[in-house]
């Protein structure tokens, strides 16, 4: 290890140019020497005897800021709680925050900055699939560690990413089984925003509906991101009269989508609607009254009644204000620092390779998660429970169904 890290710093040195050479090499040598004295950090991460630095990378500006704010708030809360408990391996966590600005290239740039300049031990961040896809090569190249909180399309498993949200099959299959059984649904109308996550989710949903449930997809439609005109889709839905509208409309489009549904007289009295893209955060914009009686499938709802969640909601509101709501991704983001703490403590070091190796053993678990019990699978995703929530006027959901603990399966056979 000693030899390799010196060689590493020398190869790094080789590419440095100009006046800083001498300063650079002595700094690198010093860094690698002092690092070797400490087994908690042998790869030159930003770890001192009493602090460890991590990055938070979410959009604070731009269209995604509304969605990502909750996630970064939850991460800060978790970090604060960990620090209050004495930190990780006796070190207090310091945070460097960067703004992804809802712009995928910026996510790549800032990831590189956090890993190369700041040498953070872990990054909690990204929200959209596009931002993760943009940042992913950087994390793989610089051997960083990213905790990614959003439920997403699956079909990915990187050594350098821990996925704390649900992958598509965990979210979709049980919800479809539930609606088929509970509502006797046979015909489905699929509608989503036009990008990778809804498309992949619908692909999985269609296969499950046709091959497993023996149902029928009577329509499948995608609208551009940010679209606010759903009139033609709503007319088609009226014509086809599906048992279930299965929706993955994201972001601001949701407001128009649900308001136009209501204006067209399609409400929960006559129509079952199941969505995989509405959390408490979106409901804030849509308005509970436009959504009342419709269903969401998520792994977490703010209204969940358990001691972990009660404590979490209370702490969150204390830190970020009584008006704040907590959606699925916010809770998943909260798990990130805790999962990292568990892995680091088990590995006894902050080294990314060792933390990943420990995470891949498949036995890191959190009994204190607000959503209940979660366990990290060796494929970097979480075992979790799928829940169906029925929306109320006040913007909160009542959980009407809970699955068993579901195994994550990012590359589902028969659904690709």
């Amino acid at each position, binding site marked *: 290890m000693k030899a390799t890290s010196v060689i590493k710093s020398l190869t790094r040195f080789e590419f440095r140019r100009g006046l800083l050479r001498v300063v650079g090499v002595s700094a690198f040598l010093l860094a690698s020497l002092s690092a070797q004295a400490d087994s908690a950090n042998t790869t030159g991460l930003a770890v001192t005897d009493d602090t460890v630095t991590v990055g938070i990378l979410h959009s604070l500006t731009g269209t995604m800021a509304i969605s990502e704010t909750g996630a970064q708030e939850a991460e800060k809360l978790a970090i604060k709680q960990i620090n209050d408990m004495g930190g990780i391996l006796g070190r207090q966590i310091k945070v460097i925050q960067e703004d992804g600005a809802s712009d995928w290239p910026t996510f790549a740039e800032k990831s590189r900055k956090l890993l190369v300049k700041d040498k953070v031990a872990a990054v909690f961040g990204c929200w959209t699939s596009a931002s993760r896809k943009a940042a992913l090569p950087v994390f793989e190249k610089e051997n960083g560690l990213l905790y990614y909180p959003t439920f997403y399309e699956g079909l990915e498993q990187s050594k350098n990413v821990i996925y704390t949200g649900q992958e598509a099959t965990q979210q979709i299959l049980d919800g479809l089984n539930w609606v088929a059984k509970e509502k006797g649904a046979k015909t489905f109308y699929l509608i989503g925003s036009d990008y990778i996550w809804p498309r992949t989710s619908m692909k999985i949903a269609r296969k499950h509906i046709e091959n497993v449930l023996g149902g029928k997809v009577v329509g499948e439609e995608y609208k551009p*991101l940010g679209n606010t005109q759903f009139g033609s889709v709503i007319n088609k839905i009226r014509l086809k009269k599906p048992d279930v509208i299965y929706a993955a409309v994201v972001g601001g489009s949701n407001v128009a989508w649900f308001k136009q549904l209501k204006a067209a007289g399609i409400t929960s009295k006559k129509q079952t609607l199941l969505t995989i893209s509405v959390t408490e955060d979106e409901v804030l914009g849509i308005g509970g009254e436009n959504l009342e009686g419709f269903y969401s499938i998520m792994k977490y709802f703010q209204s969940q009644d358990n001691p972990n969640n009660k404590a979490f909601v209370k702490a969150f509101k204390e830190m970020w204000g009584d008006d704040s709501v907590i959606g699925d991704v916010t809770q998943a983001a909260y798990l990130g620092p805790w999962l990292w703490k568990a892995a680091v403590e088990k590995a006894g070091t902050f080294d990314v390779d060792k933390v990943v190796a420990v995470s891949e053993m498949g036995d890191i678990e959190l009994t204190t998660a607000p959503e209940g019990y979660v366990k990290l699978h060796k494929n970097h995703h979480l075992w979790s429970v799928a829940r169906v929530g029925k929306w109320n006027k006040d913007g909160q959901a009542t959980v009407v169904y809970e699955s068993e603990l579901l195994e994550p399966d990012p590359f589902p056979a028969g659904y690709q």
Partner: protein
Amino acid sequence: MSFVYEKLMGGKSGLTGFIILATLILVIFPTFLDLFRLNLVGKYLTYAFAAVSLVLLWGYGGTLSLGQGIFFGLGGYGMAMFLKLEASSPENTAIQSTPGIPDFMDWNQITSLPWFWEPFNSFTFTILAILILPAAFAYLVGAAMFKRRVGGVYFAIITQVIAVILTVLIVGQQGFTGGINGITDLRTLHGWDITSNNAKYIFYFVNCFLLLGVIVLSRFILTSKFGRLLLAMRDKEDRVRFSGYDVSNFKIFIFCIAALISAIGGAMFTLQVGFMSPSFVGIVPSIEMVIFCAIGGRMSLIGAVYGTLLINFGKTTFSESFPELWLFLMGGLFISVVMFFPNGLAGIWDDYGHYLTDRLKQLKDKFTTVVLNREPKQLAEDAG
């Protein structure tokens, strides 16, 4: 010699500016910036291609294009398609339902490589496509509009509309284009790791030389007879037309050149950043490019580069230091430049630069009079 001096460099002031810029990007940045920052500067300099193209088209040609992102994007996508195909070898993509095609196609249930992707297996074709396709597209658009004497605001709006259409097309046809995610995870060029530190240095310098080359080419265009015609067309188009020139052909030509220059920037961007996405094609990036050009001074080829560097440097540092406030700081920067220096950075240099040069001249005179004139006297005194 005088050809080089007058036509390619633009006389004394042009040459001075060119040398200062070349020293800055070729010597000073690589010496004083670490690789991470240098890579960022490299990325900014790819935008500078678009800004320089706007100096030709807008500053001199008087035709504002709000769609340079189209050509930047076409160039970038061309390069990205080649690199993606190389990254999608059957071995690398064995996990997919259809190995050997780019991952996003597999996610979108496409089972064979679309016909228009096939030629991008060839590097020669890719380079030609980057140089020719955007220019050819610009020719089509330019011919359709300038021949009908559409210009000014209408032209700006139409270019903007095309940028929107192209974005919608790329996002909508995600099976063929990678959609909103863009084409990501590009790793090698002919088996050579483009994410390595060596590659980053090489691309940086290639990028600098291309940019300096583009500036020389643009200077040549502007100092030629054609350049004077451009100015004449901008100021009194009818008079040029009545003098017997075919105004539309000149406009089409400069539009094609501007497209070509932007496309080179796009291709270099893909190589240095490692991916391409529709967020470089649409309205926002296109308008940003106009801002780079305006801040630099729309009549100055060199100023456009500084404008690009200043804005992007501001963007990066402000957002790193004040993640929650940085947009306001950027807004402040734009407003103050437009309010106080309507001719951009180049305008500041023209208005106040002579104070600096005068001062230097004074110092030099003083030096000559004080040191050199006194010398004999001093010598005499010493001798005496």
